[in-house]
């Protein structure tokens, strides 16, 4: 398919592909097996400038938008969706700063992330506040020129590994979500601690931890935007980053298809390569078709956002929903095509199937995405009368 990518976009995609295939792929299985966060992350993405793809040039980035970031995520995910998670979560972590941060915050934090010197994480989810993000309980109490944070954030990607944490906490708990604010907290701040690393089904190369705030005192200048804007910042951050999950899903689905295709060509049963059996050929055809449709939707959504369209919550939800459902189906079929070998950890497709599952869950479950789409449909049709 011709997606009319610019020279620069092709360059980003090609470079991400090289890093993915030459550096990440050789260690992906081992990282998964050992549930290990790659120590080479900064080398892979910092030294190649890939960390700065979605960061404006004035903060040391490449000045790319959502599409450029999606292209990089897709290629990385082809080799290892777990590593792609860490990469995308870094972008998610600085998104509140890009959207609402002060000039000083951007110069200080975003620039360091663009150079690959610092890694970021976004902290919203809590034990009792998953899909119902408005139910968060972490508080930020004003105390003179400081805020004091208390509470526990759960399942934070890059937790413990990141140097910069953007955190949504309540400055006016009585107001509910309207009383939420966003803060940026540096690792090493007294009162910022980390829980145990979660043991996950997939994306095991990524680090997922509790981020715990205990009487954590930060200067008032660490407030991102204004008090009360926290929830809006979080929603805008997620809407903007969501196509990234779609791109991750597309990349890993493509990875599963490529491996299933290669296997089907060389695996001989009944005297013939199994790809010559229509049952297998049709599965591959369906997989390829679904992936292409998902890719087209993700790219179109990314372009819609980059074009400056104001309302894109629906499109963003559609891209994430569709691509992640495709990834789950395609990886399941890839395992089926490899048969018994597909079920074994010696072959990479079972990992991709485990990795695919999270894309239907995180950054808003696919049920929540459908809620968003349905609400937007209702709103649009009501507007038309």
């Amino acid at each position, binding site marked *: 398919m011709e997606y009319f990518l610019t020279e*620069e976009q092709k*360059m*980003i995609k090609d*470079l991400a592909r*090289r*890093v993915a295939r*030459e*550096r990440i792929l050789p260690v992906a299985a081992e990282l998964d097996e050992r549930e290990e966060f790659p120590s080479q992350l900064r080398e892979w993405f910092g*030294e*190649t*400038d*890939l960390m*700065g*793809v979605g960061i404006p040039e004035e903060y040391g980035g*490449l000045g790319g938008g959502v599409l450029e970031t999606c292209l990089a995520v897709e290629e990385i995910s082809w080799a290892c969706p777990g590593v792609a998670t860490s990469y995308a979560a870094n972008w998610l972590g600085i998104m509140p700063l890009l959207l609402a941060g002060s000039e000083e915050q951007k110069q200080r934090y975003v620039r360091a992330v663009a150079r690959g010197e610092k890694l970021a994480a976004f902290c919203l989810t809590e034990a009792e506040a998953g899909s119902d993000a408005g139910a968060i309980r972490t508080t930020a109490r004003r105390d003179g020129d400081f805020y004091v944070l208390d509470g526990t954030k759960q399942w934070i990607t890059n937790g413990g590994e990141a140097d910069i944490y953007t955190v949504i906490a309540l400055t006016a708990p009585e107001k509910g979500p309207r009383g939420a604010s966003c803060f940026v907290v540096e690792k090493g701040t007294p009162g910022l601690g980390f829980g145990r690393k979660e043991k996950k089904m997939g994306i095991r190369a990524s680090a997922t931890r509790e981020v715990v705030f205990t009487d954590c005192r930060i200067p008032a200048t660490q407030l991102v935007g204004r008090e009360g804007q926290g929830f809006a910042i979080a929603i805008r951050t997620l809407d903007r980053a969501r196509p990234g999950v779609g791109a991750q899903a597309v990349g890993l689905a493509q990875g599963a298809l490529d491996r299933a295709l290669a296997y089907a060509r060389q695996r001989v049963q009944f005297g013939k390569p199994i790809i010559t059996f229509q049952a297998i050929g049709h599965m591959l055809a369906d997989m390829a078709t679904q992936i292409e449709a998902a890719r087209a939707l993700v790219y179109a959504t990314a372009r819609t956002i980059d074009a400056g369209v104001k309302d894109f919550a629906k499109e963003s939800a559609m891209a994430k929903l569709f691509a992640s459902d495709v990834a789950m189906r395609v990886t399941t079929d890839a395992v089926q095509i490899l048969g018994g070998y597909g079920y074994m950890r010696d072959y990479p497709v079972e990992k991709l199937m485990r990795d695919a599952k999270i894309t239907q869950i995180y950054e808003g479950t696919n049920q929540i995405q459908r809620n968003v789409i349905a609400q937007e449909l209702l709103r649009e049709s009501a507007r038309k009368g």
Partner: protein
Amino acid sequence: MRIIVLIKQVPESTEVRINPETNTLIREGVKSIINPFDTYALEEGVLIKERLGGTVVVMTMGPPQAREALQDAIALGADEAILLSDRAFAGADTLATSRALAAAVRKLEPYDLIICGKQAIDGDTAQVGPEVAEFLDIPHVTYVRKVRELEPGRAVVERMVEGAVETVEMSLPGLITVVKDINQPRIPSLKGIMKARRATIPVWTPADVGLPEEVVGLRGSPTAVEKVFVPQVERRGEVIEGSPEEVAEVLLSRLQSVGVL
């Protein structure tokens, strides 16, 4: 440190086909890359620059499209690039190639170190590096796996020899050819690639390097390729049967009869 890295653009595939009429490689449809061994040479140059400061100049001789290899080298950290390209350079053997490269290197004096890959994956001669050093009348060390010490006028390097490692002290300026154990070449950065696209790469002709056309290219090449072919390997296996004693007996006499023992 001023470092010069000599590179070659080669076909990406190791399974290149040969035109039986002209005995030359069929390059059509095959992507060109920097000779893999030269990427280690370039990386070593860039690492030295990053450690000690200085500049890395990368140079190649080839057709106009060899410019792409030089652009790639700039993306990987070279500061300047020079392309020797002219119809008169075409058809050069290793002698004519190294004569041209050496003449071009002279124009870049003063320099401290020249680094080359141990050999190119298409010709596999491993001659150009040492020949350049001879033309320049400077010392050279081949198959270097580590630069242990480096300072103006002097270097200590480790070279791979069969079954051992040799530590050699050499005076500078000098030339080394490197093996792949020496480092892991980096992947270029996006900013590096963009910089490389904008880079101006001067093209030098034989006149620019002060050589008459008779001594470069095909005319300056004493080597004539008669024929290039894939050798037919004939192997015959034979099973010697019998008790271990009988087999040993037969094997021994057989080896003696063919003069192996």
